[in-house]
């Protein structure tokens, strides 16, 4: 089964959807997303555990003079992220079909293009291809937000776009430099080849910083998160669910796929800087999350904090940390999409307001919604027993063994997470009924979107091992070069200090 089908089927289906007349175009997004989801499940089932190499590889030479190949492949790093992407896009497509958009065919075309872009970025095994898909996946969101978004959408989305693209510009120049400066015969952008051709340390460092800038803007990480409040307020909620759920994870994945294997010396050199940025994201994001009153921004700032944990795990440069980062990426996406959906449900019951000061007492007459929300809240704050906790445990263990002080400070982020998550739940669902609240139970259609996601969260909580099994070998291979550099560095240090 070719990965190309998986990557391009959403776009193809969406293009066909443009031609569907009238009433049918409301559901135009669902067939493509469903097909991609089925294909992703098939891929996961047929994936052979334990081998570190790529599987289901497609490798065609694309631009021979520049050494760019159209190469797609799946291994432990991106397997579950691909599944997550397809699941989230399917859930959002179903969710989006509940609303009456203007020109729904066009809406779902952009949606399909976004999904193809994301899947391409996740499966690309060629640096140039990765950069192309990385930039491509952002373009549909410009149109989705600019046309169908909320107040102040144009200014917000242009700000977001420019900011992200500045980062992408840096990444592009760094990618070109990598291809050009890599020692060896001829020019190539294929990742597996580049991994064997190590760049000189000086080049590695500035290239690393450029890549880091691009990825950190995307996540977002403190202090490059300024686009987030306006952007999150402007996007329509189904779009925001996938944006927050999966696009930020592509950036984290990018670190593990591209940066760590290709620039190990720089990764070791800048380890403390990245850990510091991650820590700042955790603390700042959490503090902002429990003082803001807009429900979307609570989730937005909490994403800043959670992505901070993921970066922390990646740059612990230890296998348990990296494993934790991968599983946490999947977990966070799986939790944040239902959370945004619940925000939509809450707003519908509070007269359209998304401010938690205007909510309250919604749990009455909506026990199923309250239960689902409580489960999602507990998963969001990474309560032990959820898969999110396993991810956090592994991440913090990795950081503990690498640089213990960072781990100890990061734990305060865990406590703050419990405050902001539970605060949102209580202000929305409990206490006296808010001024504009008219509460009612979830409809069957709402349940169709929410219940499978919550069941997935619960299933994953019972058996997180499934993701850990498939990921282990690839993770070790990804951080291997960096770990080696680190060991060599400490060996030479000891030799210098010596007798």
């Amino acid at each position: 089964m070719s990965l190309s089908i998986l990557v391009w089927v959403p776009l193809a289906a969406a293009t066909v959807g443009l031609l569907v007349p009238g009433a049918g175009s409301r559901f135009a997004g669902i067939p493509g997303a469903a097909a991609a989801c089925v294909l992703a499940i098939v891929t996961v089932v047929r994936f052979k555990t334990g081998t570190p190499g790529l599987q289901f590889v497609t490798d065609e030479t694309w631009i021979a003079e520049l050494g760019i190949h159209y190469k797609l492949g799946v291994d432990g790093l991106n397997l579950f992220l691909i599944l997550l992407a397809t699941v989230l896009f399917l859930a959002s497509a179903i969710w989006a079909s509940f609303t009456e958009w203007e020109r729904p065919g066009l809406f779902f075309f952009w949606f399909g293009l976004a999904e193809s872009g994301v899947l391409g970025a996740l499966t690309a095994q060629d640096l140039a291809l990765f950069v192309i898909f990385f930039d491509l996946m952002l373009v549909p969101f410009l149109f989705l937000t600019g046309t169908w978004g909320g107040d102040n959408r144009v200014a917000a989305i242009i700000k977001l776009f420019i900011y992200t693209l500045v980062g992408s510009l840096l990444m592009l120049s760094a990618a070109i430099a990598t291809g050009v400066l890599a020692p060896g015969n001829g020019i190539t952008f294929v990742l597996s080849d580049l991994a064997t051709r190590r760049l000189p340390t000086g080049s590695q460092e500035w290239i690393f910083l450029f890549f880091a800038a691009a990825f950190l803007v995307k996540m977002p990480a403190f202090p490059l998160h300024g686009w987030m409040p306006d952007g999150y307020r402007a996007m329509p909620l189904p779009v925001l669910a996938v944006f927050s759920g999966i696009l930020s994870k592509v950036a984290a994945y990018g670190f593990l796929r591209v940066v760590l294997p290709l620039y190990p010396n720089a990764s070791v050199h800048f380890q403390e800087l990245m850990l510091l940025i991650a820590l700042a994201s955790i603390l700042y994001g959490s503090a902002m999350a429990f003082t803001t009153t807009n429900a979307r921004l609570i989730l937005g700032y909490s994403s800043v904090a959670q992505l901070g944990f993921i970066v922390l795990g990646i740059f612990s440069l230890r296998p348990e940390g990296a494993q934790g980062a991968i599983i946490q990426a999947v977990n966070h996406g799986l939790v944040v999409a239902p959370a945004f959906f619940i925000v939509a449900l809450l707003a519908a019951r509070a007269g359209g307001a998304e401010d938690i000061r205007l909510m309250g007492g919604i749990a009455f007459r909506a026990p199923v919604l309250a239960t689902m929300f409580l489960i999602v809240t507990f998963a969001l704050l990474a309560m032990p027993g959820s898969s999110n906790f396993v991810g956090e445990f592994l991440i913090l263990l990795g950081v503990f063994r690498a640089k213990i002080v960072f781990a100890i400070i990061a734990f305060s982020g865990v406590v703050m997470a419990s405050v902001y998550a539970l605060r949102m739940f209580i202000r929305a669902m409990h206490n006296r009924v808010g001024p504009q609240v008219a509460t009612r139970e979830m409809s069957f259609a709402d349940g169709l979107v929410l219940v499978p996601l919550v069941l997935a969260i619960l299933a994953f909580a019972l058996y997180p091992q499934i993701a850990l099994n498939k990921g282990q070998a690839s993770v070790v291979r990804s951080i291997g070069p960096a770990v080696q550099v680190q060991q060599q560095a400490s060996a030479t240090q000891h030799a210098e200090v010596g007798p």
Partner: protein
Amino acid sequence: MQASAWLILLCPLIGCIVIGLGYRVWPARVVGALGTVAIAAAFVFAVNATLHLQDRAEDQRQVVYTAWDYAVTAGVDAKLSILVDPLSMFMALVVTGVSTLIHLYSIAYLGGDRGYARFFAYLNFFVFSMLLLVLAANFLLLIVGWAFVGAASYMLISFWYRRTTATSAGIKAFVINVLGDVGLVLGTFFIFKQSGTLDFLGTFAKAPQVFPKGSADITAGCLLLLVGAFAKSAQVPLHTWLPDAMEGPTPVSALIHAATMVTAGVYLIARMHPLFERAPAAADVGAIVGAATLLIAGTIGLVVTDLKRVIAYSTMSQIGYMIMGVSAGAYVAGLFHLMTHAFFKALLFMAAGSVISAMGGEQNLDKMGGFRKAMPFTYACFIVGGLALSGIPPFSGFFSKDEILLVMGEQGGWKWALYVAGYLGAFLTAIYTWRMIFRAFHGEAVEPARDLEDGHLYHPPAPFNPASGEEEDVEVGFPGPEHHIAERAMPMKAAMSLLAVLATIGGVVLIPKTTTWLDDFLEPSFRGSSVVANPDDTLLVIGLILGTVLGLLGVFVAYTIWVRRPGTSARWVERFSFLHRLFVNKWYFDELIDLLVVRPALWFGRWGQQTFERVFVNNALVGGPSGIVRAGSAAVRAAQSGFLRAYAALLLFGVVAVGLYFLIQSA
């Protein structure tokens, strides 16, 4: 035995899921019965498993059963496994036994409440979590159980979620619990760093080799485990959530905040005893904090006016005894006190619930009095519980408390201070316990009592929140409009009677010099413990006599102050006004935590919102690149003036320039 062991865990979980899924379908009687039967079944399976365990040879009584791999990767070996050994079976028996009785009590107590099904589902979930905690065979599963118990506690404290007081109490309890979780996880890291395995038995086996006595790693690890224990068991300074947790319905207070959840810290230290024995500094910290808590809580109990809060502070104090005991090495004594305390404290809470119902929801002792004639059964239960709590023979509390203090005395050295503190605490315990009983039941009968003597139950004119006094919106239907007292509700009476019997005779399992049933039962779990336990006879006799004397003295003092000479307490308040203020304000812990933790965090968040976000991030970092790009494009745009003649001129002169250039070049 494996099936029984797993079923202990699964019965409450199944009960929770069945009740939860069918919340609209089952009628109230079925829900109550289902919930109680689920826990009773778990109790039966626990008994079964214990009997099978006893059939095995003494050195084979620590068995691990594994279900599947949970998080096995990169050196971490966490599996879904349970450990069946005397300690976990002891805890399981106490938890399921007392829980069954409390479920029975709740069937009647919460009758008429709109959230009836929700209550039983949550309560079953709690029992499942607690059993997971005590049966866990590795650190990760213990932490999962620990957190689930905290979550269940939150859900039950804020059960009547219309009350802002209840929801604030819930989030406070939860956040402090998470702080404990963090301590637990960090402690696990320190221990795992050296032991390389998360499994309990594996870690304990390796402990002598990898943890030199008093090394930094094991001391740090144990201290952090203590943070977890203190948060869960409401020890100073992480105790501020427990009094507020009384917002939950009374059965919740009885089960979670008296008998089971708060004892998890005691279980933790007992389970980790091989590690604590290698970190004497941490063990000493535990003992000192336990002693401090028992005194501080005792003093606050003297002045608090809310009936449930008196019992709450009493719980805090008694758990101080248990923590002090297990930290110092008196494992069996500490666990013995855990069991007896579960009996008489649950009994006291149940009886308190009965009194509060009779008062129509009012919990303030100042407004109570003279219920002796109206509620004889409840009064009898209070007396039995009070006698057990005060440590008066032959009630169970007497034996268990003195065992702990005996070990303190045996160890000598600076532990004599703890010995004295313990007995001082016993004296205070007797005083505040009987203060509570005398104020509620003796003296002049208040209106609800007189109504009850006439035969009808008092109902307040408008439903109100007992903590804040504000009126409730009962259109939502809860808290239920009905009040149930023990004298009129058979399930309540049955549960309370059984507990009263247990509180009376419970001490029989470990009477010094006579029976050693508990000691023998728990022996396999504490084999190899380096703490010597050979009671010195003189010390034993002195302790027993001292305990009895102080208990009776306390009753007498309470009787004098609150019954014989009614104005005495007012005079004493005036004379010791500074102390009184200190106690009434709970030693200012809440204010201290607010100042040190809450305010800085909120300040940081607000500073971020208003200043940092706006100025730095938005204007500089985002506005910057954005602005530069905009300025650049504005500059370029100036060339597109739409002015035809400018275009023509540019075209012409451009061509001329290029042509001249090539001309001159070729020349």
